């Protein structure tokens, strides 16, 4: 099994397409960091326009922690496309190149082959998020420094103490990894139905866009559906950055406003991963690869 995973990883990282995602993330993050380094004050002033009328804010708001949060908000919407580029190609790519039958002639079961491919695409997804974390968090911390994290929600602001931030990012990135593995599992599932990569990649993105729109629409008829859509739970990493307050409205350090929501979302995503993977194995084991 380990040999199979190694072979699949070799195949993934041998293709130039794999590195598009890493280059795209690096380019996007660099351009945002460059812009904020040059004109971060204007951006901060724009953000503070509303609150600045009644409150005086002293200190470095545009620090590494806030910049990482801004980038995660922007990028985690687009990273699914980069994940789908590889995961949706895992089976369909083999079919397209005509190597699927050859692959299945090896002395391994179809389940083993499929699991090896899924684990390999999961490793790619994890590496992509580690790359994102290095550039968005650590490089931003290095360029902009660290400090308290000042977050503006739509109806309130949250101030998180400097020494209470890092573990939240660790949690947020772990959660984001789970979310992206769900996307990877969806792309992987769709790839068993096609004989070229474009179809499953576009289908994965279309499903994500469609469900995301349903998740964000505030139409009562769709509200009952929302908890079951995996796209509703992809953004639950943000919950790590909301604090509980006590009776005197003092934020409690080390707390999370709604930890149950994170647990529920993680469970929903895990169920989706298992469902997509299970369905992939079940369908692929029945698939006629001779025609």
């Amino acid at each position, binding site marked *: 099994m380990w040999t199979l995973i190694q072979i699949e990883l070799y195949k993934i990282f041998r293709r130039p397409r794999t590195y598009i995602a890493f280059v795209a993330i690096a380019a996007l993050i660099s351009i945002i960091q460059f812009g904020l380094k040059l004109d971060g004050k204007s951006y901060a002033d724009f*953000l503070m326009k*509303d*609150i*600045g*009328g*009644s*409150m*005086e*804010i*002293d*200190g*470095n*708001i545009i*620090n590494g922690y806030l910049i990482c949060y801004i980038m995660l*908000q*922007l990028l985690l919407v687009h990273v699914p496309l980069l994940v789908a580029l590889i995961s949706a190609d895992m089976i369909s790519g083999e079919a397209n190149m005509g190597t699927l039958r050859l692959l299945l002639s090896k002395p391994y079961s179809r389940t083993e082959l499929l699991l090896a491919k899924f684990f390999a695409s999961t490793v790619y997804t994890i590496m992509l998020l580690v790359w994102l974390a290095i550039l968005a968090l650590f490089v931003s911390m290095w360029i902009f420094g660290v*400090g*308290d994290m*000042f977050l*503006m*929600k*739509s*109806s*309130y*602001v*949250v*101030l*998180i*103490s*400097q*020494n*209470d931030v890092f573990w939240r990012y660790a949690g947020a990135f772990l959660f984001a990894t789970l979310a992206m593995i769900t996307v990877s599992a969806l792309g992987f599932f769709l790839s068993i139905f096609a004989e070229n990569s474009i179809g499953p990649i576009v289908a994965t993105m279309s499903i994500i866009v469609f469900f995301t729109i349903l*998740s*964000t629409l*505030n139409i009562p008829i769709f*509200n009952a559906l*929302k908890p079951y859509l995996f796209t*509703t739970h992809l*953004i639950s990493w*943000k919950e790590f950055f*909301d*604090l509980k*307050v006590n009776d*005197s*409205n*003092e*934020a*409690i*350090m080390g707390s999370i*406003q*709604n930890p149950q929501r994170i647990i529920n979302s993680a469970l929903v995503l895990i169920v989706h991963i298992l469902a997509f993977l299970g369905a992939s194995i079940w369908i692929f084991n029945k698939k006629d690869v001779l025609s």
Partner: protein
Amino acid sequence: MKKLLISLFVFHFSLFTHAQDMTTLIAKVKAKLDLVTDYEAVGHMKTDVSFIKAPLGKVKVYFKKPNKFRLKKEGGISLLPKGGVSVNMSSIIATNEFVALAAGESVIGGTNTRIVKLLPTNENSEIVLTTLYIDEANLLVRKAITTTKENGTYEMEMNYGNFSKYGLPDKVIFSFNTKNYKLPKGITLEFDDSEKSLSDAQKLKNKKGRVEITYSNYIVNKGIADAIFVK
């Protein structure tokens, strides 16, 4: 007619005398505050504002005559009511451009106080009216309500301890009215369910803003560089 004129004169004179008395009291309080040319204080700040979730923070406060004031929070970011905390006692009575009127007596935290209303004589003054509750025996301002032109009305309550001889409080409770805060979701990129945001907002709503600073130590008259006050 003659009686009426005499009555009016006596009434006016009595008011004048009272105002003079209060000016003397204010002058005594000012003389006490004048003992301090600068100070640096360490304390803890608690922010209780309807739309802010902030933890208890360690702060350093700097003051230098006549009205330089800076509050720095450990870790970097502090949120304070606009123009508010800088309105400290020394700043309020830094000038003599006011009329001090007696407005009765009151008990603040178990201490008898004289109520004095300060009306600025300078039309360009940012402060419209200040009401001081003065502990006459110790020459300490226990409470101050300040109405400003731009930043609304602020209330300060002060508790004194070790540094009362300088007129410096151990604890300041600063109350003010907050405006509603709302940012479009497009800016915050908050596309989660609105029910959650609403319940959070409701929980935080309808409260008067309050900032509480508890000082643990003062360093008085040791000199502070002007650079500290540059933001």
